[in-house]
């Protein structure tokens, strides 16, 4: 069983590569694509695209299903959602902390000015 941290690691590793992000972005725009359709915008060969798809599939970010000779690739957004949720927790933590830091510092500044007058 792969734990939460390992899943996050795999997700981040998968999306850090620009070609893989571009593949994900393509899949976001449509419901399923063949491997040759996905390879079209890139100046890389089919086997290289297949390798990227392996990494994405290992991270659970895409699924591949075969029908006849055609492999259809689909986006599976759950791992990305999980990773984003993890990051959002940090964002919420700091965003509200810094809002309160701002309010506190501004009240200290206002108090110092009143005293200085």
């Amino acid at each position, binding site marked *: 069983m792969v734990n939460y941290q390992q899943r996050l690691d795999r997700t*981040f590793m998968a*999306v850090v590569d620009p070609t893989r992000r571009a593949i994900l972005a393509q899949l976001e725009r449509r419901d399923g694509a063949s491997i040759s359709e996905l390879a079209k915008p890139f100046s890389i060969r089919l086997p290289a695209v297949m390798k990227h798809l392996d990494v994405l599939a290992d991270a659970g970010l895409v699924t591949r299903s075969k029908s006849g000779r055609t492999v259809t690739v689909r986006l599976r957004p759950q791992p990305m959602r999980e990773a984003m949720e993890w990051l959002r927790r*940090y964002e919420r933590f700091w965003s509200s*902390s*810094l809002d*309160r830091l701002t309010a506190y*510092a501004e009240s*200290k500044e206002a108090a110092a000015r009143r005293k200085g007058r």
Partner: protein
Amino acid sequence: MTSLTLVRRIKARPQVVFDAVTTAEGIAQWWGPDAGPVLVAEVDPRVGGRYRVRFRMLDTTEHESSGEFLEIVRPERIVMTWRWKGGVEDPGESRVEMTLKAVPEGTELTFIHSQLHDEETCRSHEEGWTGSLDKLESHFAAVTVAC
């Protein structure tokens, strides 16, 4: 690697903001994601000095983080390591960096929490972490991935 960047404009001088971040009295007033209390605030603001902050959230859970100051330049810059105590989800050490810039209205605070992800994963990744997650705009805005 993953980092979070936030910028705030504060109507207070940099030294006022700096003191709010580097004194126990100040930290007790703002640290934490909701209005729950800060229970422990220990801070030794010099290079090599440590801090420890424990807070309770409104849902009654308690959380503690601690670390070491790597840089302290009053009133401009604070860099510290960050580690959650007993963090199951985030076992590693990350880095918090705050830069205070004097602006006409007071202070512009740039806050960066970086190295949120495993350094080993980063090093072992042969293609290098050069990309930026923000291209996936529909998913997230303020987060970047870079090594």
